């Protein structure tokens, strides 16, 4: 599945987190005991930190070093000499790399807009009272629990241009789309990828936003209604401002995961047609795994690390600023 989901607001919960432990400092709490107590949190953290150091920091540093070395597995199993920024330069001069950057950005933009837009619509619809609402809310988690690779296969199956069930449905509603080969045309192949992402994410986003909507006090809305505000005005001036911080988080989360898209590319399009669906993560994968150019692939994956890092940092700054307001 996609990398674990974590919001960047942990920082907030750290800032406003739980009170420090009550420390029974009986008489005779000597220096030794104080030191032991000071060391305690670090002892508790040690296993988890060791795991993170081994499985995240080590590979990151290692990839950084490798990105400055010439290393093709088909030539040698040992890393070659240092080549400086050569492989980074190569990436920036490479049209296929540039293509994957554009594909990734375009894909991220469209899938964020659609996932969040549709997710918000679902949340607003389900936030009203009505039959089947409870059941539908309970089922919103399901698409996200489906493995992304499997998501990819099932959508590829259903969008099959000859017999896929979705293709048939689309053909019967929009006869002029009957000849569209969904995975054979660059634009539509991208849109199928977007669609699988929207299917997985929009319901989950709706679930998160429903949590936010539940915290909007009904009296506020009621008061606005009594004052004669239309549904749109109430949404625009009451609900939306209250949802805004949550929406920011959701947009950011979705963007990070879209930028890392990999599983569905492999299972749906294999990067094609041509290079129309070659995302950055997939590009790095093919360079490393298919062409065995570990050095270059490391450089590309580090570019992705930097891009994601900049976005994450920008997001944190924006959140802090909003908090300060």
């Amino acid at each position, binding site marked *: *599945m996609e990398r674990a989901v974590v919001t960047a607001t*942990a920082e907030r919960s750290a800032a406003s987190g739980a009170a420090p432990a009550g420390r029974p400092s009986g008489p005779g709490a000597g220096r030794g005991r104080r030191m032991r107590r000071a060391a305690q949190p670090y002892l508790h953290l040690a296993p*988890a930190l060791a795991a993170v150091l081994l499985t995240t920091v080590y590979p990151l540093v290692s990839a950084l070093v490798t990105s400055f070395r010439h290393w093709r597995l088909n030539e040698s199993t040992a890393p070659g000499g240092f080549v400086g920024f050569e492989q980074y330069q190569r990436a920036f001069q490479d049209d296929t790399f540039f293509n994957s950057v554009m594909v990734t950005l375009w894909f991220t933009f469209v899938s964020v807009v659609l996932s969040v837009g549709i997710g918000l619509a679902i949340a607003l619809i389900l936030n009203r009272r009505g039959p089947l609402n409870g059941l*539908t809310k309970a*089922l919103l988690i399901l698409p996200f*629990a489906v493995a992304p*690779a499997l998501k990819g296969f099932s959508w590829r*199956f259903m969008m099959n241009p000859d017999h896929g069930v979705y293709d048939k449905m689309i053909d019967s509603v929009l006869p002029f789309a009957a000849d569209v080969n969904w995975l054979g045309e660059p634009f539509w192949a991208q849109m199928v990828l977007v669609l699988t992402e929207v299917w997985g994410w929009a319901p989950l986003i709706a679930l998160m936003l429903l949590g936010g909507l539940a915290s909007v006090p009904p009296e506020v809305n009621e008061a606005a209604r009594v004052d004669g505000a239309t549904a749109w005005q109430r949404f625009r001036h009451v609900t939306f401002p209250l949802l805004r911080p949550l929406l920011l988080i*959701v947009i950011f989360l979705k963007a990070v995961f879209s930028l890392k898209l990999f599983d569905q590319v492999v299972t749906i399009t294999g990067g094609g047609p041509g290079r129309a669906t070659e995302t950055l993560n997939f590009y790095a994968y093919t360079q490393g795994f298919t062409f065995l150019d570990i050095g270059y692939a490391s450089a590309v994956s580090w570019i992705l*690390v930097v891009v994601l890092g900049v976005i994450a940092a920008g997001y944190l700054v924006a959140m802090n600023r909003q908090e300060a307001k």
Partner: protein
Amino acid sequence: MTTRATGGAMTARRALGSGLHLVAVLAILFFVLFPIAWLAITAFRPAAEAFSTSPVFAPTLENFRAIIGGQNDLTAAAVNSVVVGTATTLISLPMALLAAYAFSRHRFPGHKSMLLAMVATQFIPGVAIALPFLTLFHDLGLLDTRASLVIVNLSLVVPYITWLLKGFVDGLPIEIEEAARLDGCGQITLLWRVVTPLAAPGLFVCAVFSFLLSWNEFLFPTFLAKEEATTLPVGLMTLVRPEGVAWGQMAAAGLLVMVPMLVMSMFVRKHFAQGMTMGAIK
């Protein structure tokens, strides 16, 4: 809008409104469930009719037979998935509980930055992690073993469930711990006898997540364990062959991948949405 509609017009409008609302809800249900339902139907359809859209067919187990002990046996991959998921969960839970406890109950130098660093690891693309491990595991002779997958999966699971568990521990009443400590309870006894039982529901949620993350993971096994230690999601790829995709078997295998996760995720649904957006709303 202060126009006062007459009573009749009001009810008509309200009826229309709730009618439209019901249609919208049904559309959402269709959107969410149809792909899952279609996969389930396809799994029981005779392979020759995989692409049929007719609702009438004679259900068969032939697809399941093909992937369980049949010509495209995926049981080894299923066993790998279960073993890797279970081992990842059992290893990461105690680590996460200790770390979450420290983050929740203690203030110490580096507290905030370490917590942030844990969160930050989730923004790192999988390729950047998998590539170095490819060569490391090659050198260690660990390539294509379950152990290698468990090790790499820790990079996904440990930070995430640490952070999730911290939220749970934050919510536990500290008075019980203080009382236990006054009674002379040592740190280890306290964690094992007091905190663990109190945090049990949280631990359960985290166990589900860590299993789900390992179970659905695709990039790592693609890189590091394509043959012997391959897991179910990657095993699905073996059904894609030059002569075509075995869609019926794919659907059957997909159902086996999906169902345990769907059931488990229903149990932790609430915590999931909360966990992802915690702190967003005060």
